[in-house]
């Protein structure tokens, strides 16, 4: 549906190295998919989105929408934004204060040059889309009388009214308060799947990305560092950055003892002992390797019997009760820290000596 190839856009600082921008980003978005660009601020996700929208002119690369090249750096071809069939919801919503709710949503149809809409047609299209976002009863209100959440819905209605091939959402929930955000997240997902419109969603909030997306592209410093379904991104991070950015994690460094096949297991000689890890990619013996494990995947045991492979002893330094889960900070023998999340009813208190077991399936090797 949408293909972005080798997109480059550099912002030159007054002096020295370029700051921000994107460097050689490529990805493809499938029909009807909700695709998320996720990353910290300054990672290039917004630049990528604005390049697709046509608000920025990339330095080079190619962007193809439904088989049509909307930007081609080599051919120096660029379709102006108003001729791209793309709807966009802006971070500030950009609801025009001098127009009514109805006029805001009708605007894309009124300025359309390809199709002239009859009055009845325009009326019914706008009412349909306003109804879908639940604003039909406010259609004659001035846009300034809407609350934040309602402005958000109106911006979505306006982006969808001309049934664009692609919908772009630029941090649409970041201006809402926490409760409304969760509600709108579900609403967005519902409207997107009902409407079936291919959507690119930009956010810096990893929980939001996990909850809403079909696929997530994680970006860092202008590069796309990992792309996949939310579970993959969470369970099998490919880099320290992804592991650290998405959720909380424990990270240890070491060296690979014997070569590992892709998808196989092997022992890593690390600063907390020999740990058997899962290797998503093939790796050579002797390589420096890091591995990560999520706090909720660590299993805490009382000390009894023989110490098995992947179990390390330590002392609980604190226990924080969070309701459905408790968080344990553990000083491992040998001086390293481990964060563990476990059910609060396990009877372990601060000061206890325990054994932490790292299941090999959940202990993921990555290359730094």
């Amino acid at each position, binding site marked *: 549906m949408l293909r972005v190839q080798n997109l480059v856009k550099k912002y030159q600082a007054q002096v020295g190295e370029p700051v921000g921008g994107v460097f050689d980003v490529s990805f493809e978005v499938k029909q009807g998919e909700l695709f998320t660009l996720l990353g910290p601020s300054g990672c290039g996700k917004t630049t990528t989105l604005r390049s697709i929208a046509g608000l920025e002119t990339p330095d080079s690369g190619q962007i193809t929408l439904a088989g049509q090249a909307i930007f081609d750096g080599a051919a120096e071809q660029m379709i102006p*934004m108003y001729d791209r069939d793309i709807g966009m919801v802006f971070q*500030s919503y950009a609801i*025009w204060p001098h127009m009514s709710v109805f006029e805001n949503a009708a*605007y894309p149809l009124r300025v*359309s040059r390809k199709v002239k809409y009859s009055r009845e047609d325009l009326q019914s299209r706008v009412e349909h889309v306003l109804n879908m976002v639940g604003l039909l009863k406010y259609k004659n209100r001035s846009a300034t009388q809407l609350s934040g959440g309602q402005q958000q819905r109106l911006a979505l209605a*306006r982006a969808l009214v001309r049934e664009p091939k692609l919908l772009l959402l630029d941090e649409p929930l970041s201006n809402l308060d926490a409760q409304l955000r969760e509600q709108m997240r579900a609403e967005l997902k519902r409207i997107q799947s009902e409407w079936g419109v291919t959507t690119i969603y930009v956010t810096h909030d990893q929980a939001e990305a996990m909850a809403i997306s079909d696929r997530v592209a994680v970006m860092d410093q202008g590069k796309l560092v990992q792309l996949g379904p939310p579970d993959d991104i969470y369970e099998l991070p490919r880099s320290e950055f992804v592991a650290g950015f998405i959720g909380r994690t424990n990270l240890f460094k070491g060296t690979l003892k014997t070569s590992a096949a892709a998808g196989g297991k092997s022992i890593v000689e690390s600063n907390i002992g020999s740990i058997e890890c899962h290797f998503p990619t093939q790796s050579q013996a002797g390589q420096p390797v890091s591995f990560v494990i999520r706090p909720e995947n660590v299993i805490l045991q009382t000390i009894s019997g023989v110490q098995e492979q992947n179990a390390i002893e330590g002392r609980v330094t604190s226990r924080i009760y969070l309701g459905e889960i408790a968080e344990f900070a553990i000083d491992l023998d040998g001086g390293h820290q481990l964060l563990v999340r476990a059910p609060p009813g396990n009877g372990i208190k601060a000061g206890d000596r325990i054994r932490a077991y790292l299941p090999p399936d959940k202990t993921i090797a990555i290359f730094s």
Partner: protein
Amino acid sequence: MLILVLLILILPPTLFLIKVSIFTTKADGSFGDFTLRYYQQLFTGRFFFSALTNTAIYAIGSAVIAILLGTIQAIIVERTDTPGRGWVFLGAIISLGIPHVLYTVAWLLILGRSGPLNGLLLSAFGPQSVINVYSMWGMTLIEGVGFVPLTFLLMSSVLRSTDASFEEAAMMSGARPIKTFWTITLRMGLPGIMALLLLVFIRAFESFEVPALVGLAGNINVLTTNIYQSSKGTGAMDYGQSGAYSVCLLLIVVGLLYWYNRLSGHAHQYQTITGKGYRPRVIKLGRLRYVTSAILALMFMLVTGLPLIMLVFTSLQPFYEGVTPESFSRFTLDNYRILMGPGSFRDSISNTLILGASTSTFVVPFTALCAWMAARRKPGGWLLDQIATAPLVMPAIVMSVAFLYVFVNLPIPLYGTLLSVILASSVRFMPYGMRYAYAGVLQIHKELEEASMSSGAKQGNTFLRIVLPLLSASMVSSWLFIFLLAVQAVSLPLLLVGPGTEIVAVTLFDLWQNGQVTELASMGITWVSLMVVVSACFHMVTRRYQIMAS
């Protein structure tokens, strides 16, 4: 396209101005040989340097008076709980509607030879105590007091835009309110005050009304009056001389404005505008607040009240003889009756309204488009901005001279028509329109336009449907402001108007020269009451939509 329009409007006067100063002009108006004679005459004669010194003394003096009074007023209004402080804005509104020439005349009536002040001095201390207002101090005082409403408005916006948290931090560190005000508020406002001082200095430097009405009568020459005299002197006009004078004045103003821009750019670094929930700290004065109240009332009388009372009094007299006990028994409405009847007064009022309205109507949409292109960095936008703000460097009298050359040399008979004045005014007030529109555009969130573009609207459509409606409040405000400036100007139309195209401000100027004081006063009062309505509208629009123009 826009650039072309601007160039046609701005380039010819500038070129003519420079050309007449370096070529001899033949009797038929065509250019002769290249010469530096005019400059040589200028710099070797004593006249130029004495005028320059006079101008400098006069400008510094009036700037200091204006800043001092304006700042005191602004501090009392913005930072104390003085009762009745809101009324000061009313004074400022009325002042905006009083043409500068009328204001000057009012003060001359008060301080003049047969005025009430000298009458009092004469009866109290005898003839040796009588003061002569046609002197350097008279000029400086009248000009300085005339600028007080402007400095008050600008200073109160400086005071309003400093973040209260700086002061709160000082108070939390243990400083008392007065100490805080002295060490934080004033210190942080200092760059702003310096910039304002320089601005008033420049305005006084290029001012014309006071030097022409006060200075010329007292034989005190400044640069602007020299230009006027050599352009409209008796007999043949000395084109070269006035051209050379104009170019010199222009260069000085360019230098001063450059300095001002650097200074005010620096001042902006100090100003932190917070916007949200900002509330300035108010000093509770206790009993002292009745003293400050009295100061405000006194200032109001000085700046607005006295001149207006004097004008009303004079307008009700059959002939002007000063304020004597007999004059109170002679009140008549004859002057107003003549004014309302058909004749040149009525014509000049309608001419002036046409002038103001057409100037504003041309400048405002035009600058809105230019400012939008400049603010959004459209191709050519930067150049548009530069050209449209360029006329700022030209003092009104210089521009008048420059346009005079253009219209005299033009094959189309434009000289002496109202259209010629409208053209010149449009160029003159273009920079003011730009400032307003630019500030207005910057207040529009860029995503509002991007949303329109991504809805499928082209740039032109976006400008018409989104930008213009959102700019409308600042455009209305800009329209009224330019209207008020355009109808008050004397020096710009002075050399351009002819018979049948009289302008109120110029008519007032001429009436004073002819000694028709009572007619002048009645016409002035009538005009001021009209203009106060306009300036009240301006104030309301500006307050309501919180339009900022620097």
